[in-house]
């Protein structure tokens, strides 16, 4: 009886350790991407999808606004800015629109459940040499309040958070 309890206890211990170890590994693993002091945002590309120019500009401008607002980067450079060339630890954000559904503000306000505007954007962060360091698909939506362009603001907030979480050095570390 005593032996079976000991065996059960040992099994439980082994099970606990086996479950806990991968978690420790994940927590202890170093971040895959290096920190950057500056980010450059390139103009939104939409070669495959026909995106109205006001959405393209709104995506780009909101993205820059949100990155500046979020803080953490010493500089947020625009597409074509000559000053970005001198930054060693620069990260470059390439955004490509993969899906776009222009809804209707009137339909949203009248029916509540239809008229959603949605934009799917593939974000690729590269280093200065063009080597990809992080890729992610993000989405911007406007479901009820606001005009169609508000979807671009929703995307920009998510993209700025992604950049901040992955490339901005935390003050504690």
């Amino acid at each position, binding site marked *: 009886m005593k032996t079976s309890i000991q065996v059960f206890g040992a099994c439980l211990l082994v099970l606990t350790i086996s479950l806990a170890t991968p978690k420790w590994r994940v927590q202890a693993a170093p971040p895959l991407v290096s920190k950057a002091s500056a980010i450059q945002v390139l103009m939104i590309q939409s070669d495959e999808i026909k995106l109205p120019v006001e959405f393209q500009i709104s995506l780009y401008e909101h993205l820059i606004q949100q990155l500046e607002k979020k803080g953490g980067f010493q500089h947020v450079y625009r597409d074509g800015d000559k000053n970005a060339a001198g930054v060693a630890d620069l990260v470059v954000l390439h955004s490509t629109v993969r899906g776009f559904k222009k809804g209707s*503000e009137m339909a949203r306000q009248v029916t509540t459940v239809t008229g959603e505007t949605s934009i799917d954007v593939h974000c690729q962060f590269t280093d200065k040499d063009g080597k990809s360091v992080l890729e992610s698909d993000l989405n911007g939506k406007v479901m009820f*309040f606001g005009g169609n362009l508000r979807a671009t603001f929703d995307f920009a907030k998510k993209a700025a958070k992604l950049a901040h979480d992955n490339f901005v050095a935390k003050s504690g570390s």
Partner: protein
Amino acid sequence: MRWPSWNVSIGFVLLLFSALAVPSLAQQATDRVNVVHVVGLRGVKENAKGTLTVENGNLRFVDSKAKAVVATTAIEDVVTGNESQRMIHGSVGTLTMFAPYGGGRFLSLFRSKLDTLTIQYRDSDGGLHGAIFTMAVGKAEPLKKLLVAQGAHTSTPLQDSSSGSTPKTDAAREQKP
């Protein structure tokens, strides 16, 4: 006796036409258009209401709190479009959405059309900027023409985006034998 009087009258008519024509050209260059700045101009808040003018090679936005100037030669693209918005918009419009018996939804059916003007331009460091404005219907195309006349570039030809009344008559005139 008869010939000099004809000359005088023709001269008078020419003088009258030139007097009428000169102010209209000057007015065209300095016309102020009431616009809403949607996004893009540095130092100007989103949804700020102001006036847009095109003169002396500059696009100038002025509102009660801020102003922004963009050189027309720095503008790489000008595109016009159209949108619509609720007749009752802004904070009051949002509050009407909570009106009882679907009153807010009913009010959403009443909409006004708008023109949009989107520009892309470069700053002195080469950085790309974009700005979007909305304005009353029929105001965006003349602004675009003024910008292009003063050195701005556009990816969409003016003839395609305009109503086409003047180019059509010109084309028709050329086709006549």
